[in-house]
């Protein structure tokens, strides 16, 4: 599934908790309803991003993995 996103964040090579912190920062600069694509190489980010979205109310539209990379699409609440 390919979604046109407002912004993209490349967090590859970063380890916990940096992907979450960078995601939060990136979302801060977006408007409500905008979407952010996040690419990460940290396996821990799969559960952490899910939990982050649940806690902050942002919507996790996509969560997929491909050859050691994890892709997320988040819609800002």
């Amino acid at each position: 599934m390919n979604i046109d996103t407002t912004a993209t964040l490349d967090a590859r090579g970063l380890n916990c908790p940096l992907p979450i912190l960078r995601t939060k920062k990136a979302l801060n600069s977006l408007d409500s309803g905008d979407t952010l694509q996040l690419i990460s190489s940290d396996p821990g980010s799969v559960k952490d991003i899910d939990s982050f979205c649940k806690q902050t109310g942002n919507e996790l539209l996509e969560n997929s993995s491909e050859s050691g990379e994890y892709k997320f699409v988040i819609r800002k609440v």
Partner: protein
Amino acid sequence: MGNAAKVLQEPVMDRNLFNTWFDERIAEREAAHVPSMTIIATKGTLDMAYPPFILSSTAAALGWDVSVFFTFYGLNLLKKDLNLEISPLGNPAMPMKMPVGPEWLRKMNMNIPNVVMANVPGFEKMASGMIKKTMHDKGVATIEELRSLCLEADVKLVACQMTVDLFTMDQSEFIPEIQDWIGAASFLPTAQQADVSLFI
């Protein structure tokens, strides 16, 4: 008999309506509640610097109010010049692995006897340098980075005044972003109100 039965009768009330009203009020309160966390950071080595900064920066990213009280060796984490080290001596849980070299060597855990670690000059410097390299290679943030992220996210950093006096330090050695210099009696009421309170 007839009268007693009458007294025991429930007042006329629509229970379902009341329960719905009550649940809605509870849900409103929960939605409006900002979670909060307080941490007491008492350790000043490189390895023990991570938990308070990782947890507080992440909690801030989740939208929580966070306050960290640095006391005893934890005060080291608030110095302007962070020169944190680890000591593998007497710390058998710490893996001793090479950050460079072939895969088989990197995986090998070297059991270095305490007597060697204690007597080789600069052993802690070397071990600290090695773990810093490993952390950098694996994309783990530096403590400086996590600390500035915490400050950016409005994590409240407070320091123990007694420790400064005890170790003959000076407030000028510490970062100016410290919000307050306090004692236990000032910190505990904050901790009492927190949803999560940790001692590290």
